[in-house]
């Protein structure tokens, strides 16, 4: 809230706020809560606009709320909060021809002319659309781990301001183009566009607004250099996010990446047909360019102490979860048994085409397992079967991904667990049949083996995709928990002063958006540690005026825009991006489906 220190001479203390329409009612409710007395309204004709000042008295001081109103646009009446304001509002309506909507007593511009007045009774709640009482985050924004201001950028897209929408996303998460392709989009689960049970496709809108920016380059101003140096260990999403925000805050940031390319799990873990690697690369380059981040690729950090000695004021550790879990069964080391990370890395990063044979078995039920299945299909396997020890309902992979895999011909076998692998050509995979028992700590029903019931299948290769563990180099010298993950406080501080940690290396494998959130929050904590004020908490943009659209029923009935995709037959044979994204018209239509549930009336 802008508290304008205007020179106002007065015999009692005067404070004046310049307010936008959006924040006006919040402020009014505050005044009402503080028992402020309504004095009057002063209107000033500024030519194009009319300046309206609402005067209130609080503790013998005069509090003013100043807003600028367009002459031809009605101003929402405050009589729903202060019914006594009707005389002053009618007076302004008469004298300045400025209409007030929702007045409890509307003289219709005739308060000062007495003939032919039709008036209502007094001191009753206003009829018609009530002005808003509260602004919310919006369900979509609440669901988002990063609290990306989804309502705002959807509105910006609907008004044709794609570049503005891109900036809005970056306020909370720095890689919109990647998120627009790979995010599991919890926002859409929160969307209240529920009439057709078809949420607004927020993820694709994000992709649309990013793709409208050439090379993802923006013109932004970095804060003045602070002279502090920060090292970021790990160039995954969390590290990139932290480096970007720290750089924007004016710190000198150096990112150490073990491999030759930044991106971490986004690089190796997400197939090319979902996230083309050139997009990931150019977006990270654009962000690093904006924040003036130095990137040291191919530099593995084994110890943190030397970095601190080198003159870094703080270190952010975001080394991710890179080591695959073992199946811990007989024959695991046989030839033809793959680690899904190795496969995905070979295919996604180095563009190799390993020979998997015709029949491929996948063990696991997460997104990596599905990705491995879809990759295997693209590598020419004719029969890809995914074995999961629980049922479809318990599967952690996203429904969207499962649907894509099914379309491409990946088949699923549930309630089976690998028992042993007999080496040879072909490999023999012995599976234990299971049934579901009582729910376990994660709330999912625990699979129990059925005694003596096994199945044996013959396959050419087996893919292990049962999750990844964190392995922290011994030289780091920071506290770890029993699972080998780094112990960090809520402020992402480790037990060593000046060393912060976040992302998968602290919380275990999570999604991209959560990693980006960790990076941003850690950047804020590090900035505070270095004497700054931190990054602003996600907040509602009060400067934005959002009325409810008038054709609400129509909007709620609008069907969603089906995104164009490459047909399953074509796409299963190559690594081209499956979704084609929205055209301008489609994005406009999809974004106009938002009925602004963050605006409570």
């Amino acid at each position: 809230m802008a508290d304008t220190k205007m020179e106002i001479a007065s015999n009692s203390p005067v404070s004046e706020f310049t307010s936008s329409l959006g924040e006006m009612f919040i402020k009014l409710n505050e005044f009402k809560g503080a028992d402020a007395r309504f004095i009057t309204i002063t209107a000033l004709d500024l030519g194009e606009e009319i300046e309206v000042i609402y005067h209130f008295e609080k503790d013998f001081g005069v509090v003013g709320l100043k807003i600028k109103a367009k002459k031809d646009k009605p101003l929402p009446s405050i009589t729903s909060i202060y019914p006594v304001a009707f005389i002053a509002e009618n007076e302004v309506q008469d004298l300045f021809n400025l209409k007030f909507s929702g007045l409890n007593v509307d003289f219709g511009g005739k308060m000062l002319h007495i003939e032919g007045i039709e008036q209502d009774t007094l001191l009753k709640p206003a009829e018609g659309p009530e002005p808003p009482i509260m602004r919310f985050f919006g369900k979509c924004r609440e669901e988002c781990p990063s609290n990306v201001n989804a309502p705002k950028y959807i509105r910006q897209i609907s008004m044709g301001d794609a570049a503005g929408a891109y900036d809005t996303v970056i306020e909370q998460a720095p890689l919109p183009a990647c998120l627009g392709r790979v995010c599991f989009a919890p926002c859409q689960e929160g969307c209240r566009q529920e009439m057709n049970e078809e949420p607004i496709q927020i993820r694709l809108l994000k992709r649309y607004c990013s793709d409208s920016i050439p090379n993802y380059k923006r013109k932004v101003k970095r804060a003045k250099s602070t002279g502090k140096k920060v090292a970021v260990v790990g160039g995954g999403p969390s590290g990139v996010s932290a480096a970007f925000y720290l750089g924007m805050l004016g710190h000198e940031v150096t990112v150490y990446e073990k491999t030759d390319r930044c991106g971490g799990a986004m690089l190796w873990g997400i197939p090319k047909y979902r996230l083309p690697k050139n997009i990931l690369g150019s977006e990270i380059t654009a962000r690093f360019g904006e924040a003036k981040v130095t990137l040291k690729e191919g530099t593995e950090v084994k110890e943190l102490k030397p970095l601190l000695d080198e003159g870094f004021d703080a270190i952010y550790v975001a080394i991710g979860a890179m080591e695959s879990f073992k199946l811990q069964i007989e024959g695991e080391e046989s030839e033809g048994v793959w680690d899904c990370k190795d496969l995905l890395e070979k295919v996604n990063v180095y563009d190799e085409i390993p020979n998997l044979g015709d029949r491929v078995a996948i063990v696991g039920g997460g997104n990596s397992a599905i990705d491995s299945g879809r990759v295997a299909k693209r590598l020419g396997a004719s029969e890809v079967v995914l074995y999961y020890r629980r049922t479809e309902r318990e599967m952690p992979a996203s429904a969207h991904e499962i649907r894509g895999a099914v379309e491409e011909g990946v088949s699923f076998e549930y309630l089976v667990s690998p028992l042993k692998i007999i080496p040879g050509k072909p490999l023999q995979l012995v599976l234990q049949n299971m049934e579901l028992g009582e729910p376990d700590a994660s709330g999912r029903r625990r699979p129990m083996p059925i005694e003596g019931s096994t199945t044996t299948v013959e396959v050419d290769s087996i893919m292990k995709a049962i999750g990844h563990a964190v392995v922290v180099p011994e030289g780091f010298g920071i506290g770890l928990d029993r699972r080998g993950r780094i112990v960090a406080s809520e402020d992402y501080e480790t037990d060593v002063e000046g060393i912060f940690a976040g992302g998968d290396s602290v919380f275990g494998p999570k999604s991209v958006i959560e990693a980006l959130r960790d990076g941003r929050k850690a950047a804020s904590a590090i900035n505070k540690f270095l004497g700054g004020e931190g990054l602003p908490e996600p907040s509602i943009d009060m400067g934005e005026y959002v009325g409810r659209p008038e054709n609400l029923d129509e909007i709620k009935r609008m069907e969603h825009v089906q995104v164009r995709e490459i047909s399953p037959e074509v796409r299963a044979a190559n690594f081209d991006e499956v979704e084609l994204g929205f055209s301008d018209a489609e994005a406009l239509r999809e974004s106009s489906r938002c009925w602004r549930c963050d605006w409570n009336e």
Partner: protein
Amino acid sequence: MSEVKEYTVFPFGPQHPVLPEPLQLRFVVDEEEIVDVIPQIGYVHRGIERACELNDYRRNIYITERICGICNVIHGTTYCESIEMITDAEVPPRAKYLRVIWSELARLQSHLLWLGLFADAIGFESLFMQIWRDREIILGLHEKTSGHRIHLSLNTIGGVRKDMDEHLINEYKKDLALVRTKVDAIAPVFYTDKAVQDKTVGKGILPKSKAVFLGAVGPTIRGSGIKQDMRMTGYEAYGELDFEPVTYDGEDANARMHVRFDEVYQSLDLIDKAFKQMPEGPLLHKNTDFPNGISINRTEQPRGEVFYYVEGNGTNKLQRVRVRTPTIPNIPPLVSMLIGHEISDIPTIVHSIDPCMSCTERITYIKGGE
């Protein structure tokens, strides 16, 4: 099926024997009981805010003094103060005291006038005549001071235009002592007379909890036990006079009457005190520049808070003058007070807020010179 109730709507005003002000209240009544009230104002618009923008800022003093006849001194003081805030004029201390004395004199005659009208509304005509006769003494003082019975017109930007000499001060002291004895004589009637009690006690309740929300000001809100008086901000010389507002907790018309009655004594005391403390010195310190900037000024009129918003742009004409007089904020409380009472209570309740419509309505909309 519920029966459809038939209500009668009857107009009260703008011309009515017990209502001296051009205000129309349309009463929706269910037999004798008032169900709803619709106020209609707009009978006496004179375009004063606009006139203030068109005239030289010094001439505006005479325009603003004519916003209200009874409160003319206070309007003049408030306007001059607003201009003084945005120019380099500095009011000398003696002028400040003189402004207080004349303001309190205005309050005195206004309250006596109101007590008379109130007595008339109750139907107590002899009381009305007695009080108005006593009020003549104060109008006589006005005449001795400036030569006019109502419009003193002594304020000017930077001070006052006339001084009071020893002789005049003695006249004041003598006459005000006389007023005090006269008021003393009448007081028991207001405090104890059965006719007055019957007509006022429990009529026109304005609960303390609602008073601020409905925006009441002046004696109307002080009758509900809330200490709200702009004189507490200590403008002019009030800061040096140990001012403490009069409040009553009765919340009804009777409490509001008591507030005004006690304020008569308070004004007499304040004038006495001001005479004792008034320093010698110059009367006027003129400004050398044009008003430039915004000033917000609030003072206490007999009816409550008056609000001035003045914006100057460095020329001799003002950008904007906004005046909010105390009757406007008292209309919503009046409406809520009336609902539930009987028709015969209307005059007392309407009078209990001391309506002054002519100062409420100042502005008219002149469209294309029509």
